[in-house]
């Protein structure tokens, strides 16, 4: 602990925040040293995003104090934060999609010089160095909607830098990035750190934290469970701080796809083309977990849209025995009715079965849901509680419950563990194995390669809408998959 005496740059003491009767933060404390990368960890609902938003001035705290370099400060609005040099990159990147990159940087920016008159040439001159710093070499007059998610994130960081941020809060920045974009982000973080920018890195991901963070503060139930020096700790220690108990990462019990030659496939796609897919062919068998790897925008989600009829198939054929369920990528935008209850969300897709002449049979509705909830280890204050009150993990389980009630023969899971806590991830991995064991065909899209390697029998890699490679799980490695996904080696494709 040689550097304990380093001055604390930003200090938040006894921060409290309540939403109605729920205490999101209960006297949580956090301190950040100049020039460090400090991880803010915790399960979903632990309060880390709330703390980040309080530091960024977008959520007011109910109690506690914040000081910057020893002087007490008041951060009542994002503008206050900007004046103090605090910038934030939210998980759901807060951009104006129809405005240009330059306009997104300039808007609300106290550092963009004087006046109401925004000349394009001045915008370009103002933005260029910051776009350059983050490695976004694009026309600043493109609309932000034209960027990929990774590029949008860089744009938000460029905006924060242009506001002269000395403290940068990153809220789960890699939750929607594939590894190459994440690599670029890590390199950028290292550069920023070397320039003296302090970074608060909100994340669940152990490997990232051990790679790039100097210290880690763990929140549990809205309070600070501990702050540790990352080089002197272990993942097990951090997990213990997060959940208050040790967790085992279960290894994948591999089922053998060897005896499948004689079997009829559950789903066959041959030369499938849509607006976003080109000549994709594969089979899916009963009880198989088929992994889909690829960068964001490579066609992973487009495959789900094609299989479920959301996107029109322009050529090629798709045959499948049985219904296809789709767990969408973004549970808030595409999955849940946030104002409706847990019960209503879960049974939404099977109301036909749970009703007679249009009348909902409410007893059966509850009695059918109960075993599914137990199976998912889904916990909620009550079945009538709005899903908006649940943690991310439990929200995802509500969506899974919707499909389990439907019991489709084929289930397409689009990044099901994105942004959810470790315990819920474990529950979802366990469920995937259980479903495969009873013969459901599963297609699992994931941004996390270790997850694919652990859960799947075979892995397909997509690149720009095409099938770049296919691997049996036994022969796949992170490196091989990455190479195929980024098309580093054109000869990576190997039939299996």
């Amino acid at each position, binding site marked *: 602990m040689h550097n304990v005496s380093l001055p604390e740059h930003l200090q938040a003491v006894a921060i409290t925040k309540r939403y109605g009767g729920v205490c999101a933060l209960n006297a949580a404390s956090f301190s950040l040293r100049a020039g460090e990368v400090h991880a803010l960890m915790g399960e979903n609902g632990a309060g880390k995003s709330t703390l980040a938003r309080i530091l960024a001035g977008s959520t007011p705290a109910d109690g506690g104090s914040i000081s910057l370099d020893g002087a007490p400060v008041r951060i009542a609005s994002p503008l206050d934060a900007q004046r103090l040099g605090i910038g934030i990159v939210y998980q759901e990147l807060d951009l104006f999609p129809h405005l240009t990159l330059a306009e997104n940087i300039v808007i609300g920016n106290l550092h963009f010089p004087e006046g109401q008159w925004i000349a394009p040439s001045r915008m370009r001159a103002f933005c260029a160095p910051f776009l350059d710093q983050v490695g976004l070499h694009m026309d600043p007059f493109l609309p932000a909607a034209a960027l990929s998610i990774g590029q949008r994130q860089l744009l938000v960081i460029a905006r924060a830098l242009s506001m002269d941020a000395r403290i940068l809060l990153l809220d789960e920045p890699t939750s929607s990035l594939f590894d190459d974009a994440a690599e670029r982000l890590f390199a950028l973080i290292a550069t920023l750190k070397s320039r003296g920018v302090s970074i608060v890195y909100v994340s669940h991901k152990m490997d990232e934290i051990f790679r790039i963070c100097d210290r880690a503060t763990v929140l549990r139930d809205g309070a600070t469970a501990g702050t540790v020096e990352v080089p002197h700790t272990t993942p097990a220690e951090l997990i213990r701080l997060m959940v208050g108990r040790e967790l085992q990462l279960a290894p994948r019990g591999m089922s053998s796809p060897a005896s499948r030659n004689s079997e009829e496939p559950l789903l066959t796609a041959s030369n499938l083309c849509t607006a976003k897919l080109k000549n994709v062919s594969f089979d899916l068998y009963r009880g198989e977990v088929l992994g889909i790897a690829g960068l964001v925008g490579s066609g992973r989600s487009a495959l789900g849209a094609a299989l479920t009829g*959301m996107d029109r198939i322009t050529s090629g054929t798709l045959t499948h025995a049985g219904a296809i369920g789709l767990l969408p990528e973004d549970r808030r935008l595409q999955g849940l*009715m946030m104002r*409706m209850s847990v019960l209503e969300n879960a049974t*939404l*897709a099977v109301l036909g079965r749970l009703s007679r002449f249009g009348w909902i049979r409410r007893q059966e509705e509850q009695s059918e849901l109960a075993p599914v909830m137990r199976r998912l280890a889904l916990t909620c204050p009550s079945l009538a509680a709005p899903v908006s009150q649940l943690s991310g993990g439990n929200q995802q389980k509500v969506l899974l419950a919707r499909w389990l009630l439907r019991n489709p023969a084929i289930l397409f899971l689009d990044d099901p563990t994105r942004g959810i806590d470790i315990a819920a991830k474990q529950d979802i991995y366990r469920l995937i194995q259980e479903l495969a064991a009873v013969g459901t065909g599963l297609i699992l899209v994931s941004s996390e390669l270790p997850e694919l390697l652990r859960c799947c029998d075979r892995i397909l890699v997509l690149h720009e809408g095409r099938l770049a490679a296919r691997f049996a799980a036994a022969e796949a490695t992170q490196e091989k998959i990455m190479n195929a996904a980024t098309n580093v080696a054109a000869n990576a494709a190997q039939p299996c």
Partner: protein
Amino acid sequence: MLMLHLPPLKKAQRLVALAALLLLAVLISPTAADGSRIFLQAGNLTDILRQVSLIGIISLSMTFVILTGGIDLSVGSILAFSTAVAAMFLTRGYTTHMAVAIAAAVAASTLAGLLNGVVIATTGIQPFIVTLASMIGVRGLAKWLTSNQNIDIGFGRDLAAEFAAAFREKAVVIGAYALAAAVSWTVLARTVFGRHVRAVGDNEKAALYAGLPIRSTKIAAYLLSGLFTGCAGVLYAAENHQGNPNAGVAYELDAIAAVVIGGTRLSGGQGSISGTIIGTLIMGVLTNMLRLNNVDSNVEMMIKAVIIVLAVAVQRERNTN
């Protein structure tokens, strides 16, 4: 996020607001010759219910439309259309049964609602625009059918007069509102359709992914709006003894006001029939109270404006995300 069971709290707020308004109405009520408060007289209280019944019925179906994330601006015109069709059937010898005339008016209005729904659901044009167009078009249709003349229903002994006598009874009007309210509450709370209405308004994209029948849900909501408005039109014709192609102007705004005062989110997904009923009663009691006290009707509008904004401000979602 984390609105811990706010909906019941909001419901309590609305009831408290209504109770407070009732108390105020009692306190400032002028007194009759015998010293009793006029506001509390049975005749006055039932007058309030009768006066709110037409807007009340329309606002019930408007609740469904708004819950889907839509809006129906055409209800005032559809009401006029309904009065015109009813009066034409009753006075021009098309039928000898009043039921046929009523059925024709309601069916015609339902058809107009169906048309709204089909256009909205199949073209994807915003409901505001589609129903704005039909607000204009259906008004034109009503005026064209009647040559822009009121069709008077007499006080004699003919079919039309019998119809008017029967359907302007206070008990019939209030009973129709009560029935419509009971049906609406049950449909929203207990049926698959009601669940789908809220789901579509809450998150249409998620409804698509869940495989819900989005189009037919929307069509049914607008159809219901036409149906209920048609019924309100029949009551209007009886009450006013005429088919009037200029009836119902600005009714859509009163109905929308009752719905939003009742706590239904204008962008859909959240709201209730009980809230709409309370919203309707708040507006009705307020009007009655002000008129009993001889408040100028222009001032009345200004007070209503303040009430609408206050009611919505108090109930707004304290959304932190």
